[in-house]
């Protein structure tokens, strides 16, 4: 696959998208992989300067690749607006003595282990190292995935506390990486809302797994752990009741719909990627709480993620998730009746549309 790094022939993305959608499984897989590589290569061109000089990349490609181990690399960015400022703790290193560095190091093991149990070797399923940057920027109230690595801000201490102190946040960001290397859902409109949805699913499933929670113990909230004193008691999203996570003078009111009838059709947020994900989130909640349980539901969703494609919309996702449920019933991974439970959960949010 190394040779595909330089993508010289161009096939329009929508053609690749359609090939991935319509073809037989082998063609579908090949087209999807090609579409992902073309997209990544397109995205990388001109947007980000290469982190390794071209000549070095050439040498690395010509010789055997270094062994990869899904090793953790935690960087202290020292409140600069850059990534990878100083390697603070690598795999197997003793405690660094900074709360965010050491917390993130521990959470990364949980998330890595969770995906390993699903049969996945790191973000790219090829053992890529997990690069985690903490203390990014000054009072930065955010966390993100940049296409290669994760970044966590300290928050301002008033509105938000440190984003590094939430397993939910880290699992969400790492799941963006997993999505990039699987369905690679376009970050726009419904495919973008699916991208957000899958990250919320793994953020929640991994948190519940770590805390050993049942669907009844779980709060089904996202972002409540990072609320500072100003917004204490609020959350950023609710999978159980989208649209109810917050209502305050600073953030306004949670705009997430819980049903297709309230679908957001506006231009903001890449046409609602963090907004319309509420509809899919609610369907996951309904499926998980109707006998399946969160962890079995997450297995179905993970199976589906590997069979979706960049331009997939909500209806496509419903079809593939139901198909995945059937496959896993056949394999004895989830119980009889699961297919119908999943179908009903989607029906309750107005899907397929």
């Amino acid at each position: 696959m190394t040779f595909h790094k330089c993508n010289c022939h161009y096939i329009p993305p929508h053609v690749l998208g359609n090939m991935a959608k319509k073809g037989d499984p082998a063609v579908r897989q090949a087209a999807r992989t090609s579409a992902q590589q073309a997209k990544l290569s397109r995205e990388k061109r001109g947007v980000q300067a290469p982190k390794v000089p071209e000549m070095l990349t050439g040498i690395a490609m010509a010789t055997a690749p270094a062994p990869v181990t899904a090793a953790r690399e935690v960087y202290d960015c020292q409140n600069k607006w850059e990534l990878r400022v100083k390697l603070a703790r690598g795999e197997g290193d003793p405690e660094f003595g900074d709360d965010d560095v050491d917390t993130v190091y521990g959470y990364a093991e949980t998330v890595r282990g969770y995906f390993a149990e699903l049969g996945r070797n790191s973000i790219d399923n090829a053992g890529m190292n997990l690069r985690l940057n903490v203390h990014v920027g000054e009072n930065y109230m955010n966390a993100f995935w940049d296409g290669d690595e994760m970044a966590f801000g300290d928050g301002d201490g008033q509105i938000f506390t440190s984003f590094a102190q939430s397993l939910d946040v880290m699992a969400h960001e790492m799941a963006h990486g997993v999505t990039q290397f699987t369905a690679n859902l376009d970050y726009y409109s419904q495919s973008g809302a699916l991208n957000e949805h899958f990250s919320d699913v793994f953020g929640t499933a991994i948190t519940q797994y770590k805390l050993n929670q049942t669907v009844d113990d779980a709060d089904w909230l996202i972002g409540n752990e990072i609320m500072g004193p100003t917004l204490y008691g609020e959350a950023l999203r609710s999978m159980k009741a989208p649209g109810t996570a917050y209502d305050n003078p600073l953030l306004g009111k949670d705009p997430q719909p819980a049903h297709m009838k309230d679908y957001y059709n506006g231009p903001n947020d890449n046409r609602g990627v963090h907004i319309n994900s509420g509809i899919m989130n609610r369907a996951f909640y309904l499926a998980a709480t109707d006998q399946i349980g969160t962890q079995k539901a997450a297995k179905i969703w993970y199976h589906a993620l590997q069979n979706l494609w960049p331009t997939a919309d909500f209806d496509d996702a419903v079809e593939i998730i139901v198909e995945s449920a059937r496959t896993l019933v056949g394999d004895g991974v989830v119980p009889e009746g699961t297919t119908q439970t999943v179908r009903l959960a989607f029906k309750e949010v107005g899907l397929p549309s």
Partner: protein
Amino acid sequence: MHIEFEFSGGYGGLFAAKPLGYRVETDELPDEVRDKLLALIRDSGVLELKPAQATGGPGPQRDVFTYSLTIGEGAAAKSFAFDDASAPPAVRPLLSRLRELAVEQRMRP
């Protein structure tokens, strides 16, 4: 100097349906706030940026804040779109300060 700024997004999808805005004439700001802001604008080099040096369309970054920024007067004003991952590093402290000012303004009773 006239500034129009908006931001939204991030992990939280903050202000997703309606970006949080901040408009200001720097002359109307308290001296200390104005001086710091003008210094950040100068250090960012934003006024020397060509549009192509600002964000170049969708990339692989997820959950970044996205920004729109217009600086300057009338026909001479320059407009940019940025996000956290692809903004030139020198511009990031300016975006951070404008974000703070936007939040401060919203919090004021």
